[in-house]
C-alpha cells in the first residue's frame, strides 16, 4: 500500500496535518485574545491519527469523536470557517455556536461530534453502526477516543456489544499516554491495550500514531475488514500530546524532556523524512502549502469575526425539534 503513496498524496497528507497544526496554533492566540472561550483541547502532535484514518473513510461512513476533535473535523472535511465560527460562538458555526470547541457537528458529512463525556461517544457509534447493519448499508463508523476512556465501563460495554453483534465499528484509540495528568500505567492494570480486545474476541492491532502512512495503512486494512463483514476492529494509535491537556494545565505530571523527545517524532517531520517524501517536500512546496494554509485560516478567522451572533430570542431553540410539538 505504501507504494500507493504518490507524491500527490504525500503533499496532501502533509498539507492536511499542517492545516490542523496551524489552525490550532491560531486558536491558541484567539483564546488569549478571548475570542474563543470555554475548554480548548489541542490535538497538536496527534495530527497523523485523524488524517491517516479519515483518508480511509468513504462519504457514507460515520465519525464520532471527543472534545479534542478539531483535527478530526478538519480532516473529515468540515470547513475551517464553520469550525472557527463555532468557536467564536457565532450562528454561522457548524453547531450554530451552541456547541463550541468540544461539540463540533456536521451531519452532512456524518460527523456526529464532539462528545465531552469520556467514553460517552462510544455507545452512539455502536448505534450508528447498528442502524447501518440493520439496513444493510456498507458503511463503517469510526469512533475516536483516548486511552483514558478504556477504563470507563461504557468503553467496555461497547466493545463487547459491537463484537457480539459484529457491528461495523472502527474503535480508534488515540493512546497519547496520559488522561489529563494520569499516565496509562496508573489507569490500567494491563497497559497493552490491543490485548484487551481479545477479551471481547475482537481483532486488534497497534500502530505508530506519529507516522501518517503507517496509520493510513493500518486503518485501511481495518476498514476493509470491517466493510467486508469481519466485525469491529480495535486500532491503537500510539501518539503524544505536545501541548497541555487544555488551557489550564500546569503539566506537573510529565517531564519537559519527555515532551521534547516526542517532538523529535513530530508527524510532520516523520512524513517529511519518509522515503516517499524524498524530493517531494522541498522548501518551495512546503512554503506554498504554508501559504495556502495560512490563507485558509485567515479567511476562516475573518469569516468568524464577521459572522453574526444568534439573537437572544433564539435561546431556547433546538431543545426540541421544530417539526415536533
Amino acid at each position, binding site marked *: 500500500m505504501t507504494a500507493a503513496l504518490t507524491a500527490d498524496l504525500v503533499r496532501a497528507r502533509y498539507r492536511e496535518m499542517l492545516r490542523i497544526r496551524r489552525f490550532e496554533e491560531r486558536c491558541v492566540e484567539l483564546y488569549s485574545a478571548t475570542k474563543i472561550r470555554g475548554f480548548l483541547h489541542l490535538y497538536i502532535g496527534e495530527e497523523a491519527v485523524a488524517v491517516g484514518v479519515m483518508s480511509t473513510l468513504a462519504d457514507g461512513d460515520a465519525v464520532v469523536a471527543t472534545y479534542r476533535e478539531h483535527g478530526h473535523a478538519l480532516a473529515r472535511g468540515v470547513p475551517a470557517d464553520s469550525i472557527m465560527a463555532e468557536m467564536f460562538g457565532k450562528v454561522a458555526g457548524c453547531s450554530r455556536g451552541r456547541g463550541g470547541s468540544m461539540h463540533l*457537528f456536521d451531519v452532512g458529512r456524518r460527523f456526529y461530534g464532539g462528545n465531552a*463525556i469520556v467514553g*460517552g461517544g*462510544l455507545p452512539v457509534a*455502536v448505534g450508528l453502526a447498528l*442502524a447501518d447493519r440493520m439496513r444493510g448499508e456498507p458503511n463503517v463508523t469510526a469512533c475516536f477516543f483516548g486511552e483514558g476512556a478504556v477504563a470507563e465501563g461504557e468503553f467496555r*460495554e461497547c466493545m463487547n456489544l459491537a463484537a457480539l453483534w459484529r457491528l461495523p465499528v472502527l474503535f480508534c484509540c488515540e493512546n497519547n499516554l496520559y488522561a489529563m495528568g494520569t499516565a496509562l500505567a496508573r489507569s490500567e492494570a494491563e497497559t497493552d491495550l490491543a490485548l484487551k480486545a481479545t477479551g471481547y474476541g475482537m481483532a486488534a492491532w497497534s500502530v505508530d500514531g506519529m507516522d501518517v502512512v503507517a496509520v493510513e495503512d493500518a486503518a485501511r486494512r481495518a476498514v476493509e475488514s470491517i466493510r467486508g463483514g469481519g466485525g469491529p476492529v480495535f486500532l491503537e494509535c500510539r501518539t503524544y500530546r505536545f501541548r497541555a491537556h487544555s488551557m489550564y494545565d500546569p503539566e506537573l505530571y510529565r517531564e519537559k524532556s519527555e515532551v521534547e523527545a516526542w517532538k523529535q517524532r513530530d508527524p510532520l517531520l516523520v512524513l517529511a523524512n519518509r522515503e516517499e517524501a524524498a524530493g517531494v517536500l522541498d522548501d518551495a512546496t512546503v512554503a506554498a502549502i504554508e501559504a495556502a494554509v495560512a490563507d485558509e485560516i485567515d479567511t476562516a478567522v475573518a469569516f468568524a469575526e464577521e459572522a453574526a451572533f444568534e439573537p437572544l430570542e433564539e435561546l431556547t431553540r433546538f431543545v*426540541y425539534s421544530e417539526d415536533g*410539538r
Partner: protein
Amino acid sequence: MTTTTTTATQTYREAMRAAIREAMQRDPRVFLMGEDVGRYGGCFAVSKGLLEEFGPERIRDTPLSESAFVGAGIGAAIAGMRPIVEIMTVNFSLLALDQILNNAATLLHMSGGQVPVPLVIRMTTGAGRQLAAQHSHSLEGWYAHVPGLKVLAPGTVDDARWMLAGALADPDPVLLFEHAALYNMEGDPGESPTQPDPWSAVLRRRGEAASVITYGGSLPKCLAAADALEARGVAVDVLDLRSLRPLDDAALLATARRTRRVVVVDEGWRSGSLAAEISARITEQAFYDLDAPVLRVCSAEVPMPYAKHLEEAALPHPDTIVAAVDQVMRDG
C-alpha cells in the same frame, strides 16, 4: 392486520404489546431492544410472542449493558431507525443516565439542530410488590426535569394501547413509564384512539369540590378515592397528567381555578417530587384563585422497605387521598 385490532377488554400488558406489534408492522424502522425482550418474553411479559413474529433482529435481546444499549438506541435513532429501547425498571436506568441526559437530551441542542434523536425508551416504575429499596423507585419526576426529554406515563389501558404511536411519531426522545402495578389492569382501548394526543392532560372525573391531579400508577388510587368521596356526595375533578414533560399547564390551571382547591398525588418521594413542581406552577399562576394551599400526597421519604405493612404505609392510598381532599376542603 387483525393482530392489532383489539377485542373488547384486554390488560394493560396486552394493550402495550398490541401497540408495539402495530408499530413494528407499520414501520420497518421500528425495533425493540433490551434485556430479555426476546427469548425470555420480557421481564413483565409485555413482549411475549413478538420474537416469534418479528425475529431476533427486530426483537433484540441485549447483554446486561444498560449504558451501551441505550446509547446504541440513541445512535440508531440518529441514523434514521425508530428504536424502542426497553429498560427493565427505572432503577436500572441509572446505569444509562449518562447516555439519556448527556446525549439523548443534548445532541439536538449541541449540534445546533442537526441531530434529533427520535428514540423511545420504555421502562417500568413504581413500588407495591415488596421489591424493596433497589427495585421500587418512582423517578419519572426526575426525568421530567430534563430539557430535551419528553416523558409520558400511561395510566389507563387506553393510553397503554395508543400512546406509543404518538411517542414514536415524535422527533425527540420520549420516555414512557409503565407502572408495574398496572400490567394486569383490564379495560377496553377500543379500535382507535379516543383520547387527544399524548401531550395533553385528561379529566378522568369531573366535580366541583376539589381537584385531584395525578398520573400513572396513582391514577387508579385517585379514581378509587373519587368514588369513595362521591359516595359521600363529594364530587372532585381527577386530572390525569399523562404527559409529565411537557406539562399541560392550561389543564392544570383550568381545574385549579374552577375548584380552587387542589391535591396532587404522586408516588415519588415528597421532597423534590413532580408534585412540588405542579404545586409551584399552580401557586405561581393561580395564587389568587386558590381558597387553600395546594396539598401533596406522595411517598414517605424512605428507601422502600420490603415488609408489606411498611411498604403500604410508605405509599399513597385511596384513604390518604380522601383525607387530603377533606383537608384541602377544610382549609381556608
